């Protein structure tokens, strides 16, 4: 009974928005990248560097909003590496993505030492203000994420930019024959994905938290990737999936299940996801050219 009461509480529901925020942002980023044909498994690393940059920005200027700006720039820089190596030089996207993830782990700890003289947890820094909604606090990034969902939908399905990005991810040669620069649009899309993932990092470090902790992205980039696939590369779909993950995580953190060993509660979201996917959802078909570098004029 208690369990049910806990599950259906308003505060639990609202808490899932906080859990979902970084997932929503990174998944939207993933959609940009993959819809343009670039697989981005570096979201994890971009979240991490975004989280670090946000803390550094906030610490060095005393203004957490500058921290947010830094996080987006950091995400952008990492995305630029991915774009340069994979779009311009056509390297394998998954390899480079893996490299960026490892690089992000290393460089954040390294910079913690160089900039803060510590290795695990940065000093506390100024964080974003929080605003209450039904008595529950949300930082502005959560609101931004919620606004971005329809905005991204609008971009993809109502503007010519979206049309071009979608066409490039499906059939780059077709776009090319119409004089659309495949690589330019891929570059832009990957950069946007980096900005969004960086913002997700800022949410973790100075939105909901106020310090950087090593490896604080804790696999959220991969979960965001799963949300994107689960949501079939659609902003609303990804939002729904991110909310599901967020809700499941909130349950795992807040609800007691007498019949499940406490050590296993953290696995609930993942089991739930598998069950839902296996039971109710059909195939997720990625954009046809996703993962393929584009060579002009070749078979």
């Amino acid at each position, binding site marked *: 009974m208690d369990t049910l009461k806990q599950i259906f509480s308003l505060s639990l529901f609202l808490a899932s928005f906080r859990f979902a925020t970084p997932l929503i942002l990174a998944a939207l980023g993933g959609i940009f990248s993959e819809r343009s044909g670039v697989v981005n498994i570096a979201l994890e690393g971009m979240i991490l560097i975004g989280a670090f940059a946000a803390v550094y920005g906030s610490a060095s200027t005393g203004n957490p909003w500058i921290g947010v700006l830094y996080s987006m720039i950091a995400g952008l820089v990492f995305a630029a590496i991915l774009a340069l190596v994979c779009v311009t030089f056509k390297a394998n996207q998954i390899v480079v993505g*893996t*490299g960026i993830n490892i*690089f992000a782990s290393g460089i954040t*700890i390294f910079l913690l030492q160089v900039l803060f003289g510590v290795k695990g947890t940065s000093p506390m820094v100024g964080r974003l203000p929080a605003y209450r909604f039904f008595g529950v606090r949300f930082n502005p990034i959560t609101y931004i994420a919620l606004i971005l969902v329809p905005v991204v939908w609008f971009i993809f399905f109502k503007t010519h930019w979206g049309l071009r990005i979608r066409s490039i991810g499906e059939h780059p040669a077709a776009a090319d024959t119409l004089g659309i620069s495949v690589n330019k649009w891929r570059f832009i899309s990957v950069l946007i994905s980096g900005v969004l993932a960086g913002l997700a990092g800022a949410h973790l470090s100075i939105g909901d938290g106020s310090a950087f902790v090593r490896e604080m992205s804790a*696999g959220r980039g991969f*979960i965001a990737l799963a949300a994107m696939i689960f949501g079939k590369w659609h902003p609303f779909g990804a939002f729904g999936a991110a909310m599901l993950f967020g809700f499941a995580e909130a349950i795992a953190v807040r609800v007691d299940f007498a019949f499940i060993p406490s050590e296993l509660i953290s*696995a609930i979201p993942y089991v739930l996801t598998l069950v839902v996917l296996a039971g109710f959802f059909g195939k997720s078909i990625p954009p046809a050219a996703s993962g393929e570098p584009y060579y002009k004029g070749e078979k």
Partner: protein
Amino acid sequence: MNNYSDKIKSILTDLGLSLLSIVVALIVGTLFIFLTDKSPLDAYSALYIGAFGNFSAIANTLWRSTPLILTGLAVALPFRAGLFNIGAEGQLLMGGFTAGVVGFYFTSLPAFIHLPFAIIAGMFVGGLWGGLPGFLKAKMDVHEVIATIMLNHIAIALTINYGINIFRDTGRPATPRIMDSAAMFNFKNIMDHPFLSKLPFAELFAHPAIRLHINFFLALAAAVVLWYLLFKTTLGYEMRAVGFNPDGAEYGGINASKGIITAMFISGAVAGLAGVGEVLGTHFSFMQGMDAGYGFTGIAVALIGQTHPIGVILGGILFGALAQGGLEMQFSGIPSEIVMLIQALVIFFVAALQVFKVYLAKRKAKGGVE
């Protein structure tokens, strides 16, 4: 018909480019070393000495590469069948945990039964953990990337969080120490061995610092078996066909579901063997932290090795050397993160320099016509 020499040339080009990318990565890495006020020369000579400086260092480099070769293979094989296995981490944990439990739970089995039993049990459970997403993909259209990510998290909960708590006998977050009968042969004990001790140079291994154990050779064997499986057997032919073109494979009478599930099961078993080796050969118990992110590094190893089993061995040894040499770098005062950065740089440059290869191929081809 100079096919054969063409092939050798292309392999040499691959190797050359890989070496070049390592060199470039090391050069870029000096930037970070300068930031720490140390000398890159000292750092790199430490790296080299640590990884290859003497016999023990080389042996230990091979030891460190063992789990990486195996997880690399676990990513490479499904890749050839059109599947992306991000789940080596979870498969490794499940395999290692199973081996750890079998290793301590049966107290009176003779070694020739206990060890193989523990290895096979671990590989089997790892295989199931890989086969499950294969099954979900084949029968229910669940994207294997999501499924394997989810199963990684579930494996952590099941083994590290829950499993250890069930079996733990001391405060240490680890299962009890395995029986000696389940331990893999460590080469430092070579002089105690009736046959191996007679081998030439056997005494070189008899150094307490050498941690190399037989799992390295099992990993090599796994690579050869997988190479053979992929390129020489009918099943491998079928798996590759499914990977390239499932519709074409279906037309050719190939059962795509079977190919997918088999590839994922085998890959899970191989990742499981990585865990088995760490438990039975390196740590002698299943402990928190023993996975060390091998599953994810395995992705890089697989792709650097061009998802070719032989390439994976080389990629695994490269990363093993970086890990082993990196520790030595720390002794000379370089922060351990530098090693991670260099690993990442190697990955970038190996990937980026592939472009060169395409370019070289083009230029050569053009030259050939004129």
